[in-house]
């Protein structure tokens, strides 16, 4: 009797440890999967590419009709530095780094978004 009770306790402890490992593992998995800030570039409704915000990069987003936007990631911020569109609204736009911030190029249908960025304390912007 005594022995089996002790075994039970050991088993419960083992199970609790397993549960804890699962729990921590799940959270860790979650954190590495969703918490890294990235720039997501969309052309129309299609995702063109995803670029980590912590790595400096210059990417020419080329469209099938020859038009383009140049995306630059520098110091944790994403910016469009050059584009073929006539209005230049995307180039004039400031660099972005916060959650839900976007740069849009309407003529080229290019949208640059920040995912998992620093918390943004506004819900949207009026401009």
């Amino acid at each position, binding site marked *: 009797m005594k022995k089996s009770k002790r075994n039970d306790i050991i*088993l*419960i402890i083992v*199970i*609790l440890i*397993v*549960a804890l490992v*699962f*729990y921590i593992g*799940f*959270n860790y998995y979650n954190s590495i999967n969703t918490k890294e800030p990235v720039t997501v570039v969309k052309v*129309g*409704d299609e995702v063109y590419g995803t670029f980590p915000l912590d790595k400096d990069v210059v990417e020419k987003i080329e469209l099938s009709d020859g038009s383009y936007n140049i995306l630059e990631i520098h110091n944790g911020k994403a910016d469009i530095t050059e584009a073929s569109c*006539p*209005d*230049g*609204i995307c180039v*004039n*736009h*400031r660099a972005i780094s*916060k959650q*839900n*911030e*976007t740069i*849009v190029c*309407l003529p080229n*249908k290019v*949208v640059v978004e920040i995912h998992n960025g620093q918390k943004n*304390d*506004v*819900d*949207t*912007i*009026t*401009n």
Partner: protein
Amino acid sequence: MNKQKKISIFIIVAIIIVAALIGFNYNHDKGKTLFTASFLDVFDTKTDIVGYSDSKQEFSQQVEKIKEKLVYYNNLYDIYNDYDNINNIKTINDNAGIKPVKVDTQIINLLKYCKDIYQKTDKQVNVAMGSVLSIWHDYREEGSENPDNAKLPPMEELMEASKHTNIDDIIIDEANSTVYLKDPEMSLDVGSIGKGYAVQRVVEYAKEIGITDMLISVGGNVCAIGQKDDGSKWRLGIQNPDLESEETYSKKVEIKDACIVTSGDYQRYYTVDNVKYCHIIDPDTLMPANYFSSVSIITKDSGLADALSTSVYNMPFEEGLEFINNFDGVEAMWIFEDGSIKYSDNFEQYVVE
């Protein structure tokens, strides 16, 4: 109880514990979840929708319904494109001086509203100014494509066009649901009001289908339905017109059940001889106004906010302040070229740090 049975019971208990822990982790803020969606399909700008819903699926369905309505208004109020089986504002323009055009009630309603606003804004918002605005539109497009060759439209050309901007020449026949432009040289441009009016209609539709907390922004023309799920107000940033500045927002405001619209010179403009000329044209001078970098209006109705932001942008500050004070429940914020800010009497109640 044999050993196997015992182990399987413990495994089940373990699974329950893990599930409970994960569940606890995700239920900190029970209630609805915040979702966002955006698309580029309407009013030549980006639409953002932020809302609380029980599930992603429910939110997507709501967004689809709202998008469908926005597309409907976009097509009706378009002055540049034709659509299959739709008579829109462009159709009316194409038939100026030729014949009345049978149109959807929502065009009749918009144009009636525009005539009303024309009176209320002391002739500052005139949708019959298409002839003048299209000249600026063409010069701006050409100047943007060929910056070295950018030119201003000749004043004689603008003056000549301004002879064909009489809003009373828009003949609305409600019984037959037709619109006729009496002057063959005139055309409609609903750019200063159509988007705001459409957003207001869509907000009313959203409420009808049971949406209680949502933020709809069509190119920065923002309408808040209700408040946030946790009972706090929606928090909006007013774009800093100085795009070189580190500060993204000039001010932050909190609103519920209200709309905010901003008119500014920092997005749509072109440059001639190092001078910026924006897309907002003063009906009195026929030239782009340059009193401010931007004007933001907060009020209940998005159509009114849209119209007033354009008209106040075209007035000197003192005049605009007096003008705003004539309207109930309308507040304004001006950002000047040097970055300084002025408020109407009660705007500051919305401003937060």
